[in-house]
Protein backbone atom coordinates (compact mmCIF):
# COMPACT_ATOMS: atom_id res chain seq x y z
CA UNK A 1 0.00 0.00 0.00
CA UNK A 2 2.75 2.38 1.02
CA UNK A 3 4.79 1.41 -2.02
CA UNK A 4 1.76 2.01 -4.25
CA UNK A 5 1.33 5.53 -2.86
CA UNK A 6 5.06 6.20 -3.26
CA UNK A 7 4.91 5.01 -6.88
CA UNK A 8 1.80 7.09 -7.66
CA UNK A 9 3.46 10.11 -6.05
CA UNK A 10 6.60 9.62 -8.13
CA UNK A 11 4.57 9.28 -11.34
CA UNK A 12 2.60 12.44 -10.49
CA UNK A 13 5.72 14.45 -9.72
CA UNK A 14 7.49 13.30 -12.87
CA UNK A 15 4.53 13.93 -15.18
CA UNK A 16 3.87 17.29 -13.48
CA UNK A 17 7.47 18.22 -14.20
CA UNK A 18 7.02 17.01 -17.78
CA UNK A 19 3.99 19.26 -18.35
CA UNK A 20 5.79 22.23 -16.76
CA UNK A 21 8.68 21.75 -19.19
CA UNK A 22 6.24 21.35 -22.11
CA UNK A 23 4.62 24.64 -21.06
CA UNK A 24 8.04 26.32 -21.07
CA UNK A 25 8.86 24.90 -24.52
CA UNK A 26 5.48 26.15 -25.77
CA UNK A 27 6.19 29.57 -24.31
CA UNK A 28 9.33 29.73 -26.50
CA UNK A 29 7.81 28.21 -29.65
CA UNK A 30 4.51 30.09 -29.81
CA UNK A 31 4.38 33.22 -31.98
CA UNK A 32 2.32 35.77 -30.02
CA UNK A 33 0.86 36.70 -26.64
CA UNK A 34 -2.38 34.69 -26.77
CA UNK A 35 -0.82 31.48 -28.07
CA UNK A 36 1.91 31.80 -25.44
CA UNK A 37 -0.78 32.11 -22.78
CA UNK A 38 -2.29 28.84 -24.05
CA UNK A 39 1.12 27.20 -23.59
CA UNK A 40 1.53 28.67 -20.11
CA UNK A 41 -1.91 27.39 -19.09
CA UNK A 42 -0.70 23.80 -19.66
CA UNK A 43 2.03 24.38 -17.05
CA UNK A 44 -0.22 26.17 -14.60
CA UNK A 45 -3.10 23.65 -14.70
CA UNK A 46 -1.79 20.13 -15.31
CA UNK A 47 1.86 20.93 -14.45
CA UNK A 48 1.18 22.61 -11.11
CA UNK A 49 -1.79 20.32 -10.41
CA UNK A 50 0.17 17.08 -10.80
CA UNK A 51 3.14 18.44 -8.81
CA UNK A 52 0.82 19.44 -5.96
CA UNK A 53 -0.97 16.08 -6.11
CA UNK A 54 2.37 14.24 -5.93
CA UNK A 55 3.43 16.32 -2.94
CA UNK A 56 0.03 15.77 -1.32
CA UNK A 57 0.58 12.01 -1.50
CA UNK A 58 3.95 12.51 0.21
CA UNK A 59 2.44 14.71 2.93
CA UNK A 60 -0.54 12.46 3.67
CA UNK A 61 -3.38 13.69 5.90
CA UNK A 62 -1.42 16.35 7.78
CA UNK A 63 -1.45 20.13 8.15
CA UNK A 64 1.07 20.33 5.31
CA UNK A 65 -1.34 18.34 3.15
CA UNK A 66 -4.13 20.80 3.97
CA UNK A 67 -1.86 23.70 3.00
CA UNK A 68 -1.08 22.00 -0.32
CA UNK A 69 -4.82 21.69 -0.99
CA UNK A 70 -5.23 25.41 -0.20
CA UNK A 71 -2.42 26.18 -2.64
CA UNK A 72 -4.21 24.14 -5.29
CA UNK A 73 -7.48 25.99 -4.65
CA UNK A 74 -5.67 29.33 -4.85
CA UNK A 75 -4.24 28.43 -8.27
CA UNK A 76 -7.62 27.04 -9.34
CA UNK A 77 -9.37 30.35 -8.65
CA UNK A 78 -6.64 32.97 -9.18
CA UNK A 79 -4.96 31.79 -12.37
CA UNK A 80 -7.98 32.01 -14.73
CA UNK A 81 -8.79 35.44 -13.28
CA UNK A 82 -5.26 36.69 -13.93
CA UNK A 83 -5.20 35.12 -17.42
CA UNK A 84 -8.52 36.77 -18.26
CA UNK A 85 -7.27 40.17 -17.05
CA UNK A 86 -4.11 39.85 -19.16
CA UNK A 87 -5.94 38.70 -22.30
CA UNK A 88 -8.62 41.36 -21.89
CA UNK A 89 -6.04 44.14 -21.46
CA UNK A 90 -4.21 42.98 -24.62
CA UNK A 91 -7.46 42.71 -26.57
CA UNK A 92 -8.61 46.17 -25.49
CA UNK A 93 -5.29 47.75 -26.48
CA UNK A 94 -4.73 45.99 -29.81
CA UNK A 95 -7.61 43.76 -30.98
CA UNK A 96 -6.01 43.47 -34.46
CA UNK A 97 -3.25 41.27 -33.01
CA UNK A 98 -5.71 38.62 -31.84
CA UNK A 99 -6.07 36.75 -35.13
CA UNK A 100 -2.67 35.82 -36.53
CA UNK A 101 -3.41 32.79 -38.72
CA UNK A 102 -6.54 33.49 -40.71
CA UNK A 103 -10.13 34.53 -40.28
CA UNK A 104 -12.28 31.51 -39.45
CA UNK A 105 -14.32 30.39 -42.45
CA UNK A 106 -17.90 31.78 -42.40
CA UNK A 107 -19.38 28.33 -41.75
CA UNK A 108 -17.83 28.06 -38.27
CA UNK A 109 -18.95 31.52 -37.20
Amino acid at each position, binding site marked *: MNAAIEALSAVSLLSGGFFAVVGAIGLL*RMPDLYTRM*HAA*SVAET*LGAGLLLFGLLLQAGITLNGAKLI*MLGLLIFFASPTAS*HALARAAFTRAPEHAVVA*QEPPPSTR
Partner: protein
Amino acid sequence: MSSVVSEQKSGERQRAAISTAAPTALRALSVWATLLVFWLLLSGMYTPFLIAAGAGCAIAVTAIALRMRLIDREGHPIDLGVRAFFWYWPWLLKEIVKSACQVAGVILHPKLPIAPRVVRFEPSQRSALGLVIHANSITLTPGTICIEATPGEFVVHALTAEGAASLVAGNEMDQRVSRLEGGE
Protein backbone atom coordinates in the same frame (compact mmCIF):
# COMPACT_ATOMS: atom_id res chain seq x y z
CA MET B 1 -54.60 49.29 -12.69
CA SER B 2 -53.72 45.95 -14.17
CA SER B 3 -50.11 47.08 -14.55
CA VAL B 4 -50.01 47.91 -10.84
CA VAL B 5 -51.32 44.43 -10.02
CA SER B 6 -48.78 42.78 -12.27
CA GLU B 7 -46.04 44.86 -10.72
CA GLN B 8 -47.13 43.74 -7.29
CA LYS B 9 -47.13 40.15 -8.51
CA SER B 10 -43.66 40.44 -9.95
CA GLY B 11 -42.53 41.98 -6.66
CA GLU B 12 -43.96 38.99 -4.82
CA ARG B 13 -42.25 36.64 -7.20
CA GLN B 14 -38.96 38.43 -6.62
CA ARG B 15 -39.39 38.16 -2.88
CA ALA B 16 -40.21 34.48 -3.24
CA ALA B 17 -37.08 33.99 -5.32
CA ILE B 18 -34.96 35.76 -2.72
CA SER B 19 -36.45 33.80 0.17
CA THR B 20 -35.52 30.49 -1.49
CA ALA B 21 -31.86 31.60 -1.45
CA ALA B 22 -29.86 31.01 1.69
CA PRO B 23 -30.51 33.67 4.38
CA THR B 24 -27.71 36.12 5.14
CA ALA B 25 -27.34 34.86 8.73
CA LEU B 26 -26.64 31.33 7.51
CA ARG B 27 -24.24 32.68 4.91
CA ALA B 28 -22.41 34.80 7.51
CA LEU B 29 -22.14 31.77 9.79
CA SER B 30 -20.65 29.79 6.92
CA VAL B 31 -18.15 32.60 6.20
CA TRP B 32 -17.16 32.66 9.87
CA ALA B 33 -16.70 28.88 10.03
CA THR B 34 -14.65 28.90 6.81
CA LEU B 35 -12.39 31.67 8.13
CA LEU B 36 -11.91 29.86 11.45
CA VAL B 37 -11.00 26.59 9.72
CA PHE B 38 -8.59 28.54 7.48
CA TRP B 39 -6.94 30.06 10.57
CA LEU B 40 -6.68 26.71 12.38
CA LEU B 41 -5.19 24.92 9.35
CA LEU B 42 -2.61 27.63 8.74
CA SER B 43 -1.70 28.10 12.39
CA GLY B 44 -1.17 24.48 13.51
CA MET B 45 -0.72 25.62 17.12
CA TYR B 46 -3.72 24.84 19.26
CA THR B 47 -3.40 26.75 22.54
CA PRO B 48 -6.64 28.18 23.99
CA PHE B 49 -5.37 31.72 23.40
CA LEU B 50 -4.59 31.18 19.70
CA ILE B 51 -7.89 29.38 19.03
CA ALA B 52 -9.78 32.19 20.74
CA ALA B 53 -7.79 34.79 18.78
CA GLY B 54 -8.69 32.95 15.57
CA ALA B 55 -12.38 32.89 16.45
CA GLY B 56 -12.22 36.61 17.32
CA CYS B 57 -10.48 37.52 14.08
CA ALA B 58 -13.02 35.46 12.12
CA ILE B 59 -15.84 37.36 13.84
CA ALA B 60 -14.17 40.71 13.02
CA VAL B 61 -13.64 39.84 9.36
CA THR B 62 -17.21 38.52 9.03
CA ALA B 63 -18.55 41.71 10.63
CA ILE B 64 -16.53 43.90 8.26
CA ALA B 65 -17.64 41.84 5.26
CA LEU B 66 -21.28 42.12 6.39
CA ARG B 67 -20.90 45.88 6.74
CA MET B 68 -19.41 46.08 3.24
CA ARG B 69 -22.33 43.94 1.98
CA LEU B 70 -19.92 41.39 0.55
CA ILE B 71 -21.74 38.37 1.96
CA ASP B 72 -24.27 37.50 -0.74
CA ARG B 73 -24.75 34.81 -3.38
CA GLU B 74 -21.77 36.20 -5.31
CA GLY B 75 -19.37 36.69 -2.41
CA HIS B 76 -19.95 33.33 -0.72
CA PRO B 77 -21.98 31.06 -3.01
CA ILE B 78 -22.96 28.26 -0.62
CA ASP B 79 -26.14 27.78 -2.70
CA LEU B 80 -24.04 25.90 -5.25
CA GLY B 81 -23.57 23.31 -2.52
CA VAL B 82 -21.84 20.00 -2.85
CA ARG B 83 -22.86 19.72 -6.51
CA ALA B 84 -20.04 22.11 -7.37
CA PHE B 85 -17.48 19.79 -5.75
CA PHE B 86 -18.84 16.38 -6.72
CA TRP B 87 -20.60 17.05 -10.00
CA TYR B 88 -19.04 20.05 -11.77
CA TRP B 89 -15.38 20.00 -10.62
CA PRO B 90 -14.70 16.35 -11.55
CA TRP B 91 -16.09 16.98 -15.02
CA LEU B 92 -14.06 20.20 -15.35
CA LEU B 93 -10.94 18.37 -14.16
CA LYS B 94 -11.48 15.72 -16.82
CA GLU B 95 -11.84 18.44 -19.49
CA ILE B 96 -8.69 20.22 -18.25
CA VAL B 97 -6.62 17.01 -18.42
CA LYS B 98 -8.00 16.19 -21.88
CA SER B 99 -7.30 19.59 -23.40
CA ALA B 100 -3.95 20.00 -21.60
CA CYS B 101 -2.79 16.78 -23.28
CA GLN B 102 -4.05 18.07 -26.64
CA VAL B 103 -2.23 21.41 -26.24
CA ALA B 104 0.92 19.59 -25.06
CA GLY B 105 0.73 17.50 -28.24
CA VAL B 106 0.44 20.66 -30.34
CA ILE B 107 3.42 22.23 -28.56
CA LEU B 108 5.64 19.17 -29.08
CA HIS B 109 4.52 18.62 -32.69
CA PRO B 110 7.44 19.49 -35.04
CA LYS B 111 5.21 21.62 -37.31
CA LEU B 112 3.45 23.44 -34.42
CA PRO B 113 -0.04 22.98 -35.98
CA ILE B 114 -1.82 25.98 -34.45
CA ALA B 115 -4.72 27.92 -35.97
CA PRO B 116 -5.40 30.69 -33.46
CA ARG B 117 -8.69 32.50 -33.81
CA VAL B 118 -11.23 34.52 -31.91
CA VAL B 119 -14.76 33.17 -31.61
CA ARG B 120 -17.88 34.76 -30.18
CA PHE B 121 -20.92 33.00 -28.78
CA GLU B 122 -23.82 33.64 -26.43
CA PRO B 123 -23.65 32.07 -22.95
CA SER B 124 -26.96 30.93 -21.43
CA GLN B 125 -26.18 32.10 -17.86
CA ARG B 126 -27.91 35.20 -16.58
CA SER B 127 -26.36 35.81 -13.14
CA ALA B 128 -22.90 37.29 -12.68
CA LEU B 129 -21.91 34.22 -10.65
CA GLY B 130 -22.83 31.83 -13.46
CA LEU B 131 -21.05 33.94 -16.07
CA VAL B 132 -17.89 34.07 -13.95
CA ILE B 133 -17.92 30.29 -13.40
CA HIS B 134 -18.37 29.74 -17.14
CA ALA B 135 -15.68 32.26 -18.18
CA ASN B 136 -13.17 30.96 -15.62
CA SER B 137 -13.84 27.38 -16.71
CA ILE B 138 -13.12 28.36 -20.32
CA THR B 139 -9.87 30.09 -19.32
CA LEU B 140 -8.83 27.26 -17.00
CA THR B 141 -9.14 24.78 -19.86
CA PRO B 142 -5.87 24.94 -21.83
CA GLY B 143 -6.31 25.99 -25.44
CA THR B 144 -9.10 28.49 -24.79
CA ILE B 145 -8.95 31.89 -23.07
CA CYS B 146 -12.03 33.97 -22.35
CA ILE B 147 -11.17 37.53 -23.39
CA GLU B 148 -14.48 39.30 -22.84
CA ALA B 149 -17.35 38.07 -20.67
CA THR B 150 -20.64 39.97 -20.87
CA PRO B 151 -24.18 38.61 -20.27
CA GLY B 152 -24.96 38.46 -23.99
CA GLU B 153 -21.61 37.54 -25.47
CA PHE B 154 -18.36 35.72 -24.70
CA VAL B 155 -15.26 36.56 -26.76
CA VAL B 156 -12.91 33.57 -26.61
CA HIS B 157 -9.44 33.05 -28.06
CA ALA B 158 -8.84 29.48 -29.21
CA LEU B 159 -5.53 27.88 -30.12
CA THR B 160 -6.83 25.33 -32.64
CA ALA B 161 -9.83 24.83 -34.91
CA GLU B 162 -11.03 21.89 -32.76
CA GLY B 163 -10.89 24.10 -29.65
CA ALA B 164 -12.90 26.79 -31.43
CA ALA B 165 -15.47 24.30 -32.75
CA SER B 166 -16.61 23.40 -29.21
CA LEU B 167 -17.33 27.07 -28.40
CA VAL B 168 -20.89 27.43 -29.66
CA ALA B 169 -24.07 28.45 -27.88
CA GLY B 170 -25.41 25.61 -25.72
CA ASN B 171 -22.19 23.57 -25.60
CA GLU B 172 -21.72 21.03 -22.82
CA MET B 173 -19.82 23.36 -20.47
CA ASP B 174 -22.46 26.05 -20.97
CA GLN B 175 -25.28 23.62 -20.13
CA ARG B 176 -23.47 22.26 -17.08
CA VAL B 177 -22.73 25.73 -15.67
CA SER B 178 -26.36 26.73 -16.23
CA ARG B 179 -27.56 23.66 -14.32
CA LEU B 180 -25.08 24.46 -11.54
CA GLU B 181 -26.23 28.10 -11.49
CA GLY B 182 -29.90 27.15 -11.39
CA GLY B 183 -29.28 24.78 -8.49
CA GLU B 184 -31.68 22.11 -9.84
